[in-house]
Every structure is written in structure tokens, then in C-alpha cells.
């Protein structure tokens, strides 16, 4: 039990990027565009945040980390607009254009690293302005929950909580959310009610890029000391799995994200759990990915995803 309490902050630290990115994916898929480029967006976000932090810290700018996060969001939003353009205006196969962006992100980040830092990675930002762990006043005094969820976490974790609530509100309680969801279910019907499918989908995809950029920044800034080619290691796809397992619902994503966070934490703690200590480290590293498959298989029985997600929008089709 003590061990689980100990694991909580680390699990939440690893879960936050997944939750934030999956919330982005939620906007995109609910508007009807599948975004497999989330991984690429996270790479762009992680790279931009690390680079800006290194450069601004060296220049002695105050609050460099906040500028770094902002830059990550902006860069990733600009980046994902290629996908939005291809998917919405060019009738592109969304898997292909998403994959193209993933390849592009992998090449572009390292290419820019070589130009800026003369290496295959960014310089270390550890000496710069970095976040420290904080607790939330008042909330941390709630018995059990306060200790587990609101004590000694990185600010990204609290950002993830807040975003879950905001996204839930926007998706389910506002007119915009209703329109967004309708575009992902039956876009022709939305269009007949005067909703601009093109505009709504653009907003959905751009938001997914912004969130994934923040997610990438959260991952790199809280768990690593520099960005390199292996920084994201497929977590963008785990975020898509989080979205599926969370049944395209913000609260579901929160739960799914924490579960995947725990599965990654296990590799740090496996040596101190007597029952698991004899398992080879490779198998422990494999575990989050195996769990992802198991969870998807178990929980995707019913089709709960947006109906028109991934389909090319043809206004003349009824």
C-alpha cells in the first residue's frame, strides 16, 4: 500500500502528457478527423519547448519555462494545420497524411537539432528555469484523495486535471461542443442545420495540435533533461489508445491515462516488489505496450467512437 502511495506522483507525472494529448485527440476525432499525427505533434512540442527553454535560459529571460510551453503549443498548432488542410480540403486519406506528419516531425526535429546544437539532440535544459513539484493548498488537505492527487506533483499534472474539466464542459455543455460532436457523427446533417463543417473541423484539428504540443512539452520538461529522437517513443500512439480506452470522454481519458501512467511507473519500482523482482527488465519495459493492447481488446467491444471519424466529408452525400 505504501508503495502505491509512493508511486502515485510518478504515475501522475507520466500520465499527464498522455491525458493532455488524448484530450487533444478527443477534439479532433469528435469533429470527425482522425489524427494519428498526435505523435508527431508531441515531438514538435517537446523539441520546441526544450529548444526555447535552453535558448531563453541562456539569455537570462525570466519565466523562460512558460515561454517554452507557449512556443510548444504554437509550433505544434502550426504543424498540425498541414494535416487539417489535407484532411479537410484535399480529401486526403487521414492515416496517410497523419503518418506523413509523423515522419516529417521525426526528420525535422533532428535536422533542426543538428543545425542549432550540432548534435542529434538539444542541449540539456537542466540548469535553466525548470518546474519544481508543488502541492495545491486546501485540496491537499482532503483525506486520502488530497495526499494521492494533490501533493508534490509537477504543475503539468494540475494542468491536466483542469483541462479535463474544461474539455468536459466545452464538449458537453456548450453550443460549440454540440456542433463539434454533430460534425463527427453526421456532418451532412450538421451542415443542413447551418453549422460550418469545415470551420468546426479546422478548430477541432488545431485544438488537437495545441493540446498535443502541450503534452509533448509536459513529457519532455518533466521527465527528461533534453530532447532527442527517442524522447516521445510512441507515446502519441499510447495517447490514441488512451482516447479509445477512455471511450472518447474526458473523464474516461483521465482514468485511462492514470492507468497507463502506472503501467510505465512499474519499471522503476519492479525491483522493490518482491513478487516481480525476478522478471527481466526487458519484459517490464514491454508491459505498458502489452497492457495497451489488452485494454483496447477488452474495452473496444462496442463501437462508441464518433461515427464519421476518419471519413472524407462529401457535402453532396446524404
Amino acid at each position, binding site marked *: 500500500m505504501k508503495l502505491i502511495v509512493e508511486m502515485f506522483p510518478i504515475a501522475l507525472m507520466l500520465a499527464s502528457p498522455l491525458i493532455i494529448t488524448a484530450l487533444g485527440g478527443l477534439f479532433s476525432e469528435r469533429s470527425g478527423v482522425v489524427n494519428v499525427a498526435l505523435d508527431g505533434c508531441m515531438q514538435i512540442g517537446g523539441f520546441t519547448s526544450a529548444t526555447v527553454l535552453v535558448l531563453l535560459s541562456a539569455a537570462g529571460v525570466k519565466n523562460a519555462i512558460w515561454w517554452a510551453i507557449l512556443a510548444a503549443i504554437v509550433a505544434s498548432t502550426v504543424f498540425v494545420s498541414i494535416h487539417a488542410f489535407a484532411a479537410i480540403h484535399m480529401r486526403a486519406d487521414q492515416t496517410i497524411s497523419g503518418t506523413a506528419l509523423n515522419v516529417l516531425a521525426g526528420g525535422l526535429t533532428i535536422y533542426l537539432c543538428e543545425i542549432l546544437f550540432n548534435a542529434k539532440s538539444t542541449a540539456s535544459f537542466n540548469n535553466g528555469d525548470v518546474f519544481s513539484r508543488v502541492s495545491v493548498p486546501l485540496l491537499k488537505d482532503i483525506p486520502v484523495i488530497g495526499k494521492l492527487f494533490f501533493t508534490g506533483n509537477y504543475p503539468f499534472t494540475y494542468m491536466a486535471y483542469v483541462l479535463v474539466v474544461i474539455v468536459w464542459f466545452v464538449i458537453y455543455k456548450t453550443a460549440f461542443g454540440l456542433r463539434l460532436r454533430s460534425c463527427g457523427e453526421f456532418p451532412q446533417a450538421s451542415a443542413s442545420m447551418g453549422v460550418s463543417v469545415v470551420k468546426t473541423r479546422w478548430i477541432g484539428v488545431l485544438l488537437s495540435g495545441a493540446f498535443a504540443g502541450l503534452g509533448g512539452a509536459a513529457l519532455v520538461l518533466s521527465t527528461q533533461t533534453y530532447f532527442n529522437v527517442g524522447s516521445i517513443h510512441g507515446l502519441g500512439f499510447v495517447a490514441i489508445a488512451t482516447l479509445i480506452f477512455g471511450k472518447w470522454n474526458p473523464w474516461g481519458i483521465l482514468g485511462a491515462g492514470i492507468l497507463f501512467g502506472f503501467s510505465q511507473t512499474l519499471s522503476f519500482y519492479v525491483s522493490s516488489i518482491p513478487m516481480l523482482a525476478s522478471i527481466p527488465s*526487458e519484459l517490464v519495459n514491454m508491459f505498458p505496450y502489452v497492457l495497451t493492447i489488452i485494454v483496447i481488446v477488452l474495452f473496444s467491444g462496442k463501437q462508441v467512437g464518433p461515427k464519421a471519424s476518419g471519413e472524407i466529408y462529401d457535402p453532396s452525400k446524404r
Partner: protein
Amino acid sequence: MKQYSSRTISLLAVVLGLLLASLLLVVTGKNPLDMFSALLCSLTGFDLTAPHKGFNLMYPLNWLLNCLPVILTGLSVGFAYRTGMFNIGGEGQFIVGSLAASAVALFIPLPPIIHPIVCVLAGALAGACWAFLPGLLKATRNINEVVICIMMNYIALYFNSWVVRTFLPVDQKTLARTIQFPASASFTPLNFGTSSKFHFGFLVVIVCLLLFWFIIEKTSFGFSLRATGFNKEGARYAGMSTNLNTILSMMIAGAFTGIAGAIVALGVYSYGRIFTGFDNYGFDGISVALIGACKTTGILFGGMLIGLLKAAGTTLQLLGISKEIAQLIQASILIFIAIQYGIVVVLNKIDSRKGKKKEANA
């Protein structure tokens, strides 16, 4: 609206991709002509930056060497795509193919010629097994194969290093690979006295190209695969077992990539590797297949193009250009292929303008 052949669109996408990459080089202060001279050097063996050195056969041989695995992974992605599946699990299938070939090479003593063939078959089988799960889940539960494939890639990465460290004889000097394969297992080099590692594995690639063409275009099984990819419900209504087709197509696709893993292990390395990251051959296959519009000859040419980009990497680095530029060119080509609808629209506009000019002249 007039339609254009996939060949026209692919050619345009390649040209536009190269232009975009040149633009990026100019923006970042490099000379794009260096890039083209590096590509030309790999293609022809003549180094324009050092013309006095003359013709060097090593460069074209290295180009062909780089083509072998990407043609195979291209066949893999193309095969799955014709059945309506997106095989992005090539990295994992490549790794287990390499693993299976290494195990057979090290443990089963066989005479030369037969030995590499058995290794390649083992690689194919391993790749097929690795692709079975995504195919099965897609067919029975309609689960997106992209996510499952990516997960299988990472599982293969760790699985391989566990198996190599636990069950295979590890090279005690480096601890990062197995011991050398016996000479009977490796492909005989075919390098005409140069330092290139080009080898007889190219025969395997030719066989695979023929197999791909024969299965897809000439058999009723291939026809039902294509029908499944074209219209799943229609194919099911016509009495084809679309679920079985989905699984089999994924497994055959996995087998092609597994063979790629095997011939790289047997021909280039001659030892079993502990992978620390992906080789990117599986992802290259996506570009190859899409450039080639998933047709046999298209994949052959697409593979030769991507192989060229990969082969030019070392020359590029000598000229001070990061070899990541090859990946950027690939990505640009992919984007242009994804937005081919737009390309067709633009081409139509150009055509109609030409038509009007002709009318005006007449």
C-alpha cells in the same frame, strides 16, 4: 474532371518533394546542389565534387544494397493496403524477422545455400506471426490496426533484446550482439572487389516481387483480397470471407517485412542484433508503397528511389548536410501523395487554361 494516372501523380509528388527539401536547405543556409550531387553520386558512381576520382562502383552497389529491404517493406505495406489495411507495424516485423533468422543461423547447422534460404523462411514466418494479431483484431473486433501495430513495434524491440540476451550466444566482447553467424548462413557478397556489402540476397527480393505480382494480380485469392480492400461489404455479399482475407493479407504483409529483416541480418551484419531503436525500414516501406501506388513495378521504382535517398546519407554528411534530409524528402513526398486530390485539381486548371489558349490561337 479529368483523371490522371498514378504514375503522373507519383512523379509530380517526387519532384515537388525534392523541391521542398531544396527550399528547406536554402532556408537553413545549405546548398541544395550538394544534395543533388550526392544523389547523383550514389546513382551513377561519379562524384561531381571530386571528378578526378572517376567512376566508383561502390556507390551504385551501396544504392542497390539499400534498395533491398525497402522494396520488401514496400511490398509489405502495399500488399496490406490493397486489402484495405495499413501496415505500420513494419518495424516490429522487421525485428522479429531478424531475430528468427539469427536463431536459425546460429542453432541449425545446414549446408551453404540451403542455410540462408531456411533463415529467410524463418524470418518470413516470424514476421507473419507478428502481423497476425493486428490482422485478427481488425477482422474480429474492428480495432484500428494502426495503434496495435505501433504497440507491436515496441513489444518487438524489447522482446528481441530479451530473447537475444537470454537464449542466443552473446558476443562476450561487446555484449551488444550475438556471436558471428557461421559462414554457411551468410549471403555471399557480390561486390566486384569493392568495399560494398551488396550480396546475393537480391535474388530473394526478385522472387518476392514476382510472388507479390502473381498473388495480387493473377490468383483468385488476390482478386478477393483486392475486392475486400475496395469494398468490404460488397466482397462479403459476394461470398468472400473478408475476415479471413484481412488476417491472411496482414500475415503475408508481415512475411515480406520479416524477410527484409532476415536478409539485412544475413547479408549486412552476419550477427544477431540487439536493437536499441528502430531502423526505419518499416516506415520507409510506407513511402515506397504509396509512391508506387501499391503496384509491383511502382513499388520496385519507389524502393529504388527511397533506397537512393538512404544510400546518399553518408555522402550528404560528408558535404555537411544532415542525413535527416532524406526523411524530410520522404515526408514531403508522402504529404503530396496524400493531397493528390489537390494536385489533380491544379492539373485540371492548367489543362483548361492551355485548352483556352489553343482555342484563342485557332
